[in-house]
Structures are given as structure tokens and as C-alpha cells.
């Protein structure tokens, strides 16, 4: 009876729509969503990011407005729910505004270092031989310095300021990212599918673009996110030493520095910027741990 209706002639040239299949990143996301710790950390980070982004609307008062009569007020003071600092400025407003610079100092150097470090590492790893030796031994010279010392030395030499601090942090983070990139690329280079791609006659650039990048950027990215916490702490340290953000701009590390004289008067208020730094760094660490384990599983 099927012959009664002429079967519609399917054009042979057009391939039928291929069956959908969950991509790699979708399965990573699915696993990450089940990880409660990572998701909590991620939520905290999103909230803090939003808080900093919309500081103009969220901060109850002007973070620069001084009120010497009301200096070093405790937590719960009417009008200043989180107290005031040594110049009588509202702590809640300064913490909200401080997120902008603190997060910028944490994320931007790592982000820039991610580009330069992974480019150097991938080139070194894929090229091998003399190129590898030249790039990686140069990187090792920087790596030999303790990161804090290198950041302080560079910032000190360049002079205090936001951009100099970010620049020195970028320099600090390029070597570790380059080393990780080099090792994952070297490992990947000997895979059969890279050999097969070479056997297809593809150029090194095409192989890098199609076969190498997709496989190495994930692990490098995860490693880099774990550096954001370090970057925030180093940035706070630079500001604490007076080498980063300058007063009166609010930044958590610099606020911690300014308030350290008041530690015996208002210990809780003094601790607040530290709590913020701690919260953001641990969240970044937990999120990158979760991301790492979500990416490791191969079904």
C-alpha cells in the first residue's frame, strides 16, 4: 500500500540533518551545575561583580564624603551600617565602590597574561627544539623570582599607580601561564590525531588553529582562573605597600592598609576589606577547582 502514494523523492545530495550530540562544553556545564560548591562560589562572584558594576546605584552615600566628627564608628551605627573609616567615610559605600578597582586588578592582569602567556607557551610547545629552549629559558628567568618580590620590584621601579601595578602583575603571571601552556601543548603534540593532521598535509598554522587550540585553551583557562585569586591578593598587597591604587580611591587592599592603625579601636570594621578579598579569592579558587574537575571527566 505504500506504493499508492509516490514517495517524495528525497534529493540525494542533501544530507539528512545529523543527530544532535551534546558538545564538549555543554557536558562540562552539565557537570559543573551539579557541583554545589562551585555553583555557590560562582553565585557569590556574580553577585560581587554586579555589586561593583552598579556601585553608583547601590552605594547608600558618597564614598569620598568625610565626616571627621563621626570617624571610626562601629558596625551598626545609624546611617553607617558597616561603620566609618579613619576619615569618617561610610565603609559600606567604600566597600561597594572598592570592588571595581579590586576586581579590575585581580582580573585584568591575569586576562592579559592569559593571552601573552598561552601564545608564548603554545608556540614554544608546538615548535619544540631551539624555539622552545629560547622562549622557555627566558620565561624561567622571570619565574625564578618569587612572585611577590617581582611585583614589588617592578612596581617600585616603575613608580606607584594603578597601571604600573597592573603591568607588573601581568609580567608576574605570564611565566606560570606560559609554562602550563607549553606543557599541555607538548603533551598534545605527540597525539595520533596531530600526526594524522600532519599526514593530511595541513600547515602548522592550520593544525594549531583546528586541532591544538581547542584542546589546550580549556586547561590553560582553568589554570588562569586559579591565578585571579593570587592576583587580587598581590594587588591588595601592592596597594597595602602604597604601590598600587592611591588614596582617596577606594580599593580593598589600600583600605586595609589605611585602617590598620585603627585595628585596636574597631577590629571588626578593619577586617571588612580583608573579608571581601578573602571571599572573592576563595570563590575564584573553588570555581576553578570545580571547573577543572568538570573538564577532566571524559565520558
Amino acid at each position, binding site marked *: 500500500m505504500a506504493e499508492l502514494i509516490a514517495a517524495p523523492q528525497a534529493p540525494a545530495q542533501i544530507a539528512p540533518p545529523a543527530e544532535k550530540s551534546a558538545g564538549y562544553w555543554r557536558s562540562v556545564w552539565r557537570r559543573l551545575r551539579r557541583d554545589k560548591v562551585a555553583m555557590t562560589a560562582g553565585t557569590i562572584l556574580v553577585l560581587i561583580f554586579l555589586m561593583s558594576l552598579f556601585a553608583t546605584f547601590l552605594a547608600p552615600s558618597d564614598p569620598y564624603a568625610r565626616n571627621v566628627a563621626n570617624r571610626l564608628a562601629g558596625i551598626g551605627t545609624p546611617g553607617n551600617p558597616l561603620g566609618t573609616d579613619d576619615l569618617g567615610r561610610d565603609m559600606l559605600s567604600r566597600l561597594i565602590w572598592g570592588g571595581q578597582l579590586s576586581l579590575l586588578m585581580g582580573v585584568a592582569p591575569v586576562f592579559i597574561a592569559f593571552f601573552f602567556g598561552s601564545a608564548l607557551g603554545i608556540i614554544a610547545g608546538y615548535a619544540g627544539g631551539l624555539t622552545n629552549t629560547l622562549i622557555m629559558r627566558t620565561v624561567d628567568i622571570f619565574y625564578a623570582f618569587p612572585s611577590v618580590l617581582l611585583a614589588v620590584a617592578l612596581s617600585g621601579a616603575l613608580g606607584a599607580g594603578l597601571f604600573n601595578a597592573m603591568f607588573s602583575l601581568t609580567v608576574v603571571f605570564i611565566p606560570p601561564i606560559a609554562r602550563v601552556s607549553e606543557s599541555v601543548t607538548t603533551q598534545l603534540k605527540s597525539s*595520533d*590525531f596531530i600526526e594524522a593532521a*600532519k599526514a593530511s598535509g*595541513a600547515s602548522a598554522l592550520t593544525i594549531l588553529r583546528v586541532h591544538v587550540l581547542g584542546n589546550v585553551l580549556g586547561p590553560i583557562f582553568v589554570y588562569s582562573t586559579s591565578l585571579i585569586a593570587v592576583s587580587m591578593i598581590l594587588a591588595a598587597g601592592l596597594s597595602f605597600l602604597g604601590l598600587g591604587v592611591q588614596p582617596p580611591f577606594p580599593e580593598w587592599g589600600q583600605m586595609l592598609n589605611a585602617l590598620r592603625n585603627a585595628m585596636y579601636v574597631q577590629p571588626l570594621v578593619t577586617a571588612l576589606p580583608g573579608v571581601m578579598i578573602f571571599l572573592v579569592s576563595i570563590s575564584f579558587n573553588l570555581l576553578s577547582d570545580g571547573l577543572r574537575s568538570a573538564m577532566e571527566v571524559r565520558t
Partner: protein
Amino acid sequence: MSDATPLMTVKGLTKHFPIKGGMLGRTVSRVHAVDGISFDVLRDETLGVVGESGCGKSTTARLLMHLIAPDAGEIIFDGRRVGSRDMTMASYRSQVQMVFQDSYSSLNPRLTIQDSVAFGPQVHGVRRRDALQRTHDLLDRVGLDPARFAARYPHELSGGQLQRVNIARALAVRPRLIILDEAVSALDKSVEAQVLNLLADLKKEFGLAYVFISHDLNVVRYISDRVLVMYLGRVAELGRAEDVYAAPQHPYSAALLSSMPTGDPDRRVEKAALQGDPPNPIDLPGGCRFHTRCPLVGTMCRGTEPELARIARDHDVACHARIPGSGHRPESKERAA
């Protein structure tokens, strides 16, 4: 007709891997992985390559594909030297392809099956739409429904299915010769048989030649027209499969074939045909490299390395004992004692 000339001629191909040592990274010694091998691959033939682990089979495959540069020797493909202006590496690599042993790791885990297969043709300038069309046809041809498999990722397929994908990938650039490096060794027996039959069909359909590298002697006999026996980076014996299997001339081939597993209880072997391990390829014995394990060893075997010589029609052997007039005298009496 050009059919008389071989499709590929390999002349004196050599690869020694340096072993670096000391503080300055000087080369302290060398692994003689492939040590001057020469052979032809005829049009439409399957050349089986057998030998123990570590005899240089896989290095040979990688040399043939030019994935590693040879230290000496040359490859002539279709009458033109590979790497010359007449036969550039790019055009060589569109005519010769390779299938690896590990079917999973030879596919990019981040690419779909169709992207992996279509990659080769796109490299050679085929438009993506046409490359995908060719991919779907080939997947269908190797027994994988494109509607089900084309958009899947490697980890969703079984080993046998993946090896079919790898075969499709090799076919996608329309090669004339495919090097199969232990391509079926990792598959279980029933899947192996299916893939072997598929390979035989594809060979007829596309007019392919194969270099079939394997340690499995039964499989090599099944698929090969001619067989090349390798020992420690040299050709020990080269001849038609039926001749080599019926009457192996080199004592190493004889020992290898007698160690072949058989289903026939009357032909059961109870004693290992070969004693000991092959010598270290870093520190090769002088003379014939098989003399340390050879039942026919003679005085001259310790001093002179035998060259591959023709002893019958289409049958070459590198053994003093088999080459007439070589002056070989066995010293088997002392060995028998």
C-alpha cells in the same frame, strides 16, 4: 603502460634516534630503529610487514608518511622522488594516507566525526560543503550511517566504529596508497574480521594499495599479496605471501612463523622457536644482526652483514646460509651440544 613500474619505491631508508646524555646533551649513542631498508610497493597490492615488537615497523610507517625525517634514503612515488618539485610533500600527502593503531587517540576529541573526516579535503582546497558531502558518502561506505554518526564526538563511538571513521578519514583525500599501522590490532576478533573485509572491499573499489603493518601473522597472511619480514630495522625476507608462509627462507622468518598460534593440535608448538630476546638496537651485534639467535649461524655471519639477495622469483632473503656461493658453513654442531 606505467603499470609495470612500482607505485612506491623505498631506497635505503634509515632512521637512527640519538640518545643524548651528559651535561652538554651530546649524542652518546644511537638507536638503530630503521637501518637501510629498501622495497617496492606495487600498484593494487597489499604489502604485509611483520616482525617482533621494536623491530622498527612503526618507525618505518612514520618514515613512509614523512612524519619524521629520515637520516638517509629516499622514497620514490609514482616514479617521482618525494620532496622534489615533481612530487611535493603536499601532493604526496594527498596520495598517501595512514591509519593508526589507537582509533580513539587518532581523532580530535573536540571535533565531530564529520569535521575530522572533512579536515583533509578542506586542507587540499575542497570547499566545506563538498568536503562534508564527500564525508557523508564515505561514512556511509564504511558502514556508518551519516545521519546517526556524522555529528557525534569520538567518545560516543566504539573502537570498531572509530576505526571505520579513521579509514573514512584516510580515504577522504582520495589517496592511492594507505599505510595501516597495526590498524586492526586493537580491535576484538569479530570486529577485526569485519574491518579486514571492509579494507579488502575498499581496495577493489578505489584501486588502492596497502602497506599493512602488523604483528599478527594470521591477519597478514589473510590480507597480503607479498610479505616483508623485518628484524631489528632491516629487511630479513621479502616475497609472495604464499611462498614465505609455505617455505620461509630466512631462519628468522621460519622461527617467527613456527611461533604462529594455530587451531590445529597436531601442529602445536611446545618449545619456543627462538631463544632469548632480540639484541639491543642501541648496541647491535656485528655481522648479521640475527646471528646471536640463529640456528644456522656460521663463522662469516659474525663478521659480514648479509645483503638482501634474490634467491627465487619474487623472493629476496638476507641470509648467508641461503645465498648460494656465499661461503657459509654452519657451526651447528657446537650449538646442538
